[in-house]
């Protein structure tokens, strides 16, 4: 019974943990502008995330070595240094976007300008890292993040034309009057919003924190195979909810509170309360997780002791890196750069950088000397290589698309 309980808790945490500011913004924008024609990108991104997270989780469970051990040991000195620097830079931008997201949610709730909330959000995120036990942090915010189910329920209350939505999902095409590069740009941003590097770093390092062994592989797989797809479903629900409400009125989403309008028109204040709580939980958990991930990446790369399972004084430099990244991200957000734009840059650059951490994991998962009989099966390798080619193509086109469409205009 206890196993089932912890399993469901793990799944729900994975659902809540999957959705972050990147999913909220990109799903809202694409739903209002392109309808469901970009649903395929969320499916590709979620499938990729499940595959990548399962492989990384399995490597961590068997070898007790999360991602950046593998990066440092397998990629040689120069390549691994470039990899670690790029990933840390990306974690910082994502952290800034998440802190901006938390502040936007608080602005939505209280009406006070988000700039006031940014330092408080940064401080609160750091306090969670500094003292809140790992399990609490994951479970509390993961469960609160489930409030986003209100979007799924709202779909039944809103005048949704299910047939038209289904038709758009099945036969995706660039909607008339929309520029093709922008359509492809948002496809890349949706894939990037699903496969966020810090989420995989956190998933595998979190596994090490919880002391995963080969026996916990089944539980890890359940989390990844059920939790993340349901998280992807939530993103699709946010996208779909925008179609009946925002698209007919030609509203283009450029602020986080516009994403919540469909629920307001479906359920009014009660619905909005759910949205506020779940948006806050999702973005706040993501802020704490991305701050932790920048600490994880640097500490694992340099071989310092890391993690919340040790008292802070035993993992001094890890906490120093987390503190420094929170301060840097908060300062960056305080430059009043629009958090929504920062989020779009973070997810697109994130999509471009996925192969950096995915390639070494795919290789190590095939090393029998280290993985024993837990090496990749043939079909997992086939799916893994197919996904690697997709992500390499995505990273090649993402920066040019970013420039051509001026970040999605």
């Amino acid at each position: 019974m206890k196993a089932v309980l912890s399993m469901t808790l793990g799944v729900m945490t994975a659902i809540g943990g999957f959705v972050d500011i990147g999913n909220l913004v990109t799903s809202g924008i694409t739903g209002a502008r392109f309808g469901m024609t970009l649903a395929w990108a969320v499916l590709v991104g979620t499938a990729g995330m499940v595959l990548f997270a399962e492989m990384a989780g399995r490597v961590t469970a068997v070898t007790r070595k999360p991602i950046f051990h593998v990066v440092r040991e397998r990629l040689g000195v120069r390549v691994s240094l470039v990899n670690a620097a790029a990933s840390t830079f990306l974690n910082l931008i994502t952290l800034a976007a998440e802190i901006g997201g938390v502040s936007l949610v608080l602005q939505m709730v209280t009406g006070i300008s988000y700039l006031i909330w940014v330092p408080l959000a940064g401080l609160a995120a750091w306090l969670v890292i500094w003292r809140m036990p790992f399990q609490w942090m994951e479970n509390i915010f993961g469960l609160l993040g489930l409030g986003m189910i209100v979007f799924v329920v709202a779909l039944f209350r809103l005048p949704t034309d299910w047939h038209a939505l289904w038709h758009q999902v099945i036969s995706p095409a660039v909607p008339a009057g929309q520029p093709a590069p922008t359509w492809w740009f948002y496809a890349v941003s949706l894939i990037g919003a699903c496969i966020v590097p810090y989420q995989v770093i956190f998933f595998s390092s979190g596994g090490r924190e919880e002391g995963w062994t080969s026996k916990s592989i089944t539980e890890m797989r359940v989390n990844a195979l059920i939790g993340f797809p349901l998280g992807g479903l939530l993103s699709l629900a946010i996208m779909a909810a925008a179609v009946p409400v925002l698209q007919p009125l030609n509203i283009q989403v450029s602020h986080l509170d516009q994403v919540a309008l469909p629920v307001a028109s479906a359920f009014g204040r009660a619905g909005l309360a759910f949205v506020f709580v779940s948006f806050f939980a999702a973005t706040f958990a993501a802020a704490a997780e991305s701050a932790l991930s920048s600490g994880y990446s640097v500490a694992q790369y340099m071989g310092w002791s890391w993690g919340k399972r040790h008292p802070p004084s035993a993992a001094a430099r890890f906490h120093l890196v987390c503190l420094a990244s929170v301060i840097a991200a908060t300062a960056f957000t305080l430059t009043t750069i629009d958090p929504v734009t920062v989020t779009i840059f973070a997810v697109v650059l994130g999509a471009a950088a996925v192969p950096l951490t995915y390639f070494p994991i795919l290789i190590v998962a095939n090393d029998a000397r280290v993985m024993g009989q837990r090496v990749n099966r043939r079909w997992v390798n086939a799916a893994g290589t197919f996904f690697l080619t997709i992500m390499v193509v995505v990273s090649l086109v993402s920066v040019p698309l970013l420039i051509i469409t001026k970040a999605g205009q």
Partner: protein
Amino acid sequence: MTRWDEDEFTANDLLLDRELIDCHGMPAGRVDDLELSDPEPGEPPVLTALLCGPTAFGPRLGGRLGTWWQAIGRRLRLVSGSYPNRIDAGLIDHVDRLEITLLAAREHLDSYRFRRWTEEKIIGRIPGDTT
């Protein structure tokens, strides 16, 4: 007495960039370079110590970044001299494909200085760090 998992191996497989774990199971850095004995005519060089720290990592990077990394490392060292932190080969307990475990605690290793400095000067000052 060092226990090796394999009797024939290469530096990149088992030694270089591997994580060092001290006798209490705590991470103690990574092997950035290896120190070998000077070769005599009949005697091939033998591994005498593991080296870690920026002054060992710098030369392996090579190029301007490497020398710049090494210079930072030299300046950071409180003790003068630029020889990297040295862990004698005798201290190695067990070597396998996952990590290198040591016989000594990490407090007694050369590479402890930067960690103790952060511990005392920064993290130690923040309340709630001891439990």
